[in-house]
């Protein structure tokens, strides 16, 4: 075990997989000479050279499409989009090609590519640079979606993503790049998709936290325990597609209450999706309506106080959890 920052764990994952498999290569804006906009790819150009670590022009749709084409031809690209915000420019290639090609051509080719990008807000970057699009990506059949919140999970899932033959949307978080955590040593730490992590056990309410909100959920759980005598079970799904719904259902069976917290918008969000599935599959287990805590339904404002009021904090999650216990049937 070593203590690593998330950006280091991600870098190690890529380096290990690139050493292991010649067909894995990386491209993106400023991933090489600049060492990565968020320093995730630091040192990779030095080790692997220009053929395998490619700085690209600012052409998101074409960078992704080029990745798809190269994957169809047998390579395994890792495409870094500087942030989730710029993925909007690449949606045509992501949805109409990466996700659809294996299906619409009846499996004649695969698209084994990983599209990595950090999302989220909280740094006063304003409405066009603060998006959380995990809900949009998880909607699309044909894509896999990873959303790790801890360094060990990030490393294990990124390795799994690179080895996976499906197109993977690998969502990171700008604020989490510096987070430290224990990461298993060695180069074979791989976490399979569809496996949620129960980060805290409890019997009173289930709290599912997405990406950075997984940490917020843990904070809220501590407060709930210390100040309200409510023991929360905290679940980090780690992958949104496939979703380990069974772990969530088992937990709800135990606690009978569910709170889902995410940074994205409420309509059609990750919480909306999970809530629909849980009420469908475990209606009789629920003792209270499912609570969602989400980012505010607005474009993200710049002002520091306004922005922070628009993002979920532990207080909101505590309040939502208590609402499920107080509203118990």
């Amino acid at each position, binding site marked *: 075990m070593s203590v690593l920052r998330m950006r280091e764990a991600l870098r190690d994952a890529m380096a290990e997989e690139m050493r292991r498999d010649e067909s894995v*290569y990386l491209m993106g804006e400023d991933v090489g000479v600049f060492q990565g906009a968020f320093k995730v790819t630091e040192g990779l150009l030095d080790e692997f050279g220009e*053929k395998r670590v*490619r700085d*690209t*022009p600012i*052409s998101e*749709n*074409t*960078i*992704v*499409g*080029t*990745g*798809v*084409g*190269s*994957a*169809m*031809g*047998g*390579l395994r*690209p890792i495409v870094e989009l500087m942030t989730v915000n710029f993925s909007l420019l690449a949606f*045509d*290639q992501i949805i*109409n*090609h990466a996700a659809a*090609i*294996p*299906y*619409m*051509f*009846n*499996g*004649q*080719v*695969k698209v*084994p590519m990983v599209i990595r990008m950090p999302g989220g807000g909280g740094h006063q970057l304003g409405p066009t640079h603060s998006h959380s699009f995990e809900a949009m990506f998880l909607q699309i*059949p*044909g894509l*896999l979606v990873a959303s790790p919140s801890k360094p060990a999970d990030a490393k294990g899932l990124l390795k799994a993503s690179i*080895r*996976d*033959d*499906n197109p993977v949307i690998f969502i990171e978080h700008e604020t989490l790049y510096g987070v430290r955590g224990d990461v298993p040593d060695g180069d074979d730490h*791989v*976490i*399979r*998709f*569809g*496996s949620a992590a129960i980060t805290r056990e409890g019997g009173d309410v289930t709290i599912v936290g997405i990406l950075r909100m997984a940490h917020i959920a843990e904070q809220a759980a501590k407060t709930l325990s210390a100040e309200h005598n409510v023991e929360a079970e905290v679940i980090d799904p780690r*992958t949104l*597609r*496939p*979703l*380990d*719904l*069974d772990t969530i259902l088992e937990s709800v069976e135990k606690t009978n209450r569910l709170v889902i917290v995410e940074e994205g918008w409420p309509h059609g969000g990750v919480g909306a999706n999970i809530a629909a*599935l849980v009420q*469908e*599959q475990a209606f009789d287990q629920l003792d209270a309506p499912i609570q969602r805590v989400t980012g505010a339904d607005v474009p993200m404002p710049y002002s520091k106080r306004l922005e922070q009021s628009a993002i979920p904090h532990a207080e909101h999650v505590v309040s939502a959890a208590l609402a499920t216990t107080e509203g118990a049937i």
Partner: protein
Amino acid sequence: MKTAGSDGSSAARPLPEPELCLELLEMMALIRRFEEEAGRQYQRAKAGGFLHLAIGEEATIVGTTSVMRDDDYLIGTYRTHGHAIARGTDPKNVMAELFGREDGTSRGRGGSMHIFDAEHRFMGGYGIVGGNLPLAAGLALGSDYNGTDEVTVCMFGDGASNTGNFGETMNLAALWRLPIVFLLENNLYGMGTAVERHSAVTDFSKKAEGLGVPGVRADGMDVIAMREVVTEHLRIAREERRPTLVEAFTYRYRGHSAADPEVYRSREEVEEWRKKDPIEAFADRLEAEGVLDTSSRNAMRERVDARVLDAVEFADASPEPPLDSLYDNLYVLGAQGPGWYAVDERAPRAFPGEREAVHLEGQARELAEAGAAYGGQAAGAGRKPGEEVSDRDEGEAVEDSEAGEPDEES
């Protein structure tokens, strides 16, 4: 009236050997007959959706494909039945795809706009205008990466030259010296808009120069002229490792798609271009030079006719895809564990722990059949839908996957 930018009469270019000439002619005639038949089948609602026919563009297609190597890649637009056939795909399977049947090139998943044949390196069939350009860059990147010398030929229309993909891909291809021949099929219209009305620069061969990709014009109605130009540009890509653009001046005699009432061009204009029919012109030349005579010309017509009607018969007999196969190839499953990959909300009862292979039983099957019935009754002799469902035990992979060993991690 626009004229083709050809540099002199086609008689200036010598013919290749007689046998090859006859092959070229027959392939063009096969494509023509196929497209005409596809149009007829569309009228009868046997083919559905959108149907984009390349009637008139045969010389551009065959002139290009006939000089490509087997291991070169070809990627095109949504108007590519002929491109696949020219690369070697059996017309039977193309027709079956248009009919949406099991024996279609993509088992009915893609349709007319998404023909694909990995075996012959016809890499699709794409519905988004310009969307195939980055894919071409990716295929070429693979050749560069692996140090191999196959070339990617990327075909697209005049309309696509205005998309963002065009600018981005030209820059990237030039910057990274990708071995691509960009083949722009200028048929003078982007759907219903004439080139002067959609492009500030109508000399498309020049359009990418500012981005680093030089271009030339070619007579897209002359199969020999196309062969000559494309041969040279394949050589440039293969040996000099840089992209170039070939603008093929051509014309489509039918509308943009089968639903096009063609209000944007005059009948006289179409008639003028009909006089330059690439197939008739080539056949006339072959007759004049003694390579073809009337009886062999007729025999060829009959052969081609028979092949296309065979294809229709084959497609008619091919069964509809089974409803249970709806989720096939959605994901490549291998080392992953269970998890909710896809959910099926078509039936009111919830399925516990679904995977994307939905075993339709009881009410779920009834509802699936009820939905499918809106698409007409299942057609095809022999196999009935549902008979192909194989026994899939819990935990077995849905589709044959090459994705490695089963994961032992719990």
